[in-house]
């Protein structure tokens, strides 16, 4: 059903979240000047129905996950933007999902090199283990649905 709001019909946009490659490696989330990440970006499809927009968004998200390493996007300093788990819980869960592995080393005053650790490990994991690791990134997403108004001619 088409909804209307002041100024026009409601439209649900599927947007590709804005990332940029960070000069120190990895990718930086699209953030505001205050540092908060934004669930917004470039629109790729528009629907009058939210459920259809959400379904398309989920398809695109699933496609992205088959190609990407979640650790290329992780910034442990902003852990809450990537997972509802704390850093400690996240690390414990990794060890639980991938028994027998050890975490990447933690150099003094630097973050663990998660991206390389994952690239070296991922080929030896089962599909279930990979899905479980992605599941730890419950706040990381590459697409989102945002609402806007359509002004008709």
């Amino acid at each position, binding site marked *: 059903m088409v909804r209307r709001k002041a*100024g*026009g019909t409601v*439209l649900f*946009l599927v*947007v*590709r*979240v*804005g*990332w*940029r*490659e960070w000069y120190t*490696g*990895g990718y930086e989330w*699209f*953030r*505001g*000047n205050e540092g908060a990440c*934004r669930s*917004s*970006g*470039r*629109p*790729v*499809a*528009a*629907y009058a129905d939210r459920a*259809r927009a959400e379904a*398309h968004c989920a398809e*695109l998200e699933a*496609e*992205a996950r*088959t*190609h*990407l*390493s979640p650790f*290329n996007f992780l910034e442990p300093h902003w852990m809450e933007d990537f997972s509802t788990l704390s850093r400690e819980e996240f690390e414990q869960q990794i060890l639980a999902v991938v028994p027998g592995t050890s975490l990447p080393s933690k150099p003094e005053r630097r973050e663990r090199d998660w*991206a*390389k650790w*994952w*690239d*070296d490990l*991922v*080929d030896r*994991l089962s599909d279930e283990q*990979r899905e479980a690791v992605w599941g730890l990134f419950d706040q990381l997403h*590459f*697409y989102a649905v*945002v609402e*806007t*108004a*359509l*002004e*008709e*001619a």
Partner: protein
Amino acid sequence: MSGSVFVVERFRWEPARETHAQRKKLAWMPGTTSLGCFEDQEEAEADCLRREQEARQQINPFTCGGSMHERSGLDEPRLRDWILDAGLEPPEEADWARWWDERSPTMTGIQRTRIWEALDKVRFFRVRQTNTTLVFVVAAVHWTYNDENFYRSADAIEPMRAFTTREKAEGQRRKLEDEARENYNPFQMNGLSDWSAWSSLSEEEGRKCLQAVGLEPPEPDEYGHADWDEWWEGTDPASVLGRFVWELCDKVAFYEVVEVEVPPDR
């Protein structure tokens, strides 16, 4: 306008970090760029295939993605079997990129095709069928300030409002753009000292345009660098000349109109 068409799209493979241990040079990123539109599916498929084959002549597939999982639906043992079946000896160690560099020149066309077939996640183009019902979304560009200048990334935009015609969307964008320009110095956007970041004209052409309307552009220093940022200070952005300079800076935008497909009802 509505109807079904076939769009040839390029996947976004972007340069990856150079320090990567497995020689990853290209990283897949979400999204595609539309390159061509065909009414006939066969024509679209042929165009896509031609582009794919050209790309494969240039690219080592094992430098795409950081792990075999990012390249293939096959795990490494199965990939090795696949390569044996193609009559080739896989590498003893995991340096697949070097193996490709060394071996691919002596492979037959069929062997190379078989390997690309196995690396089913390394694709550069595709054909997508779509309808052509569009809306036009005005989106605000998010510029981030780094204490010296403003920078942006391609997808860092926020949709504001959608329109059924491009004309109406462009009218809205134009109005918002003019308002935003009053608050910024165009030469502080996209970096501070590179003319090519501001304008699609060359710096020489830009200078001639300014001189043609009676403006004296800044003199370059001994290193050939002109301080455009300082030159702009004090200019009224709403004046005729201020607007003229902004028009020259066509690579600096605060709003965009994005063409967005509206998939048909099922």
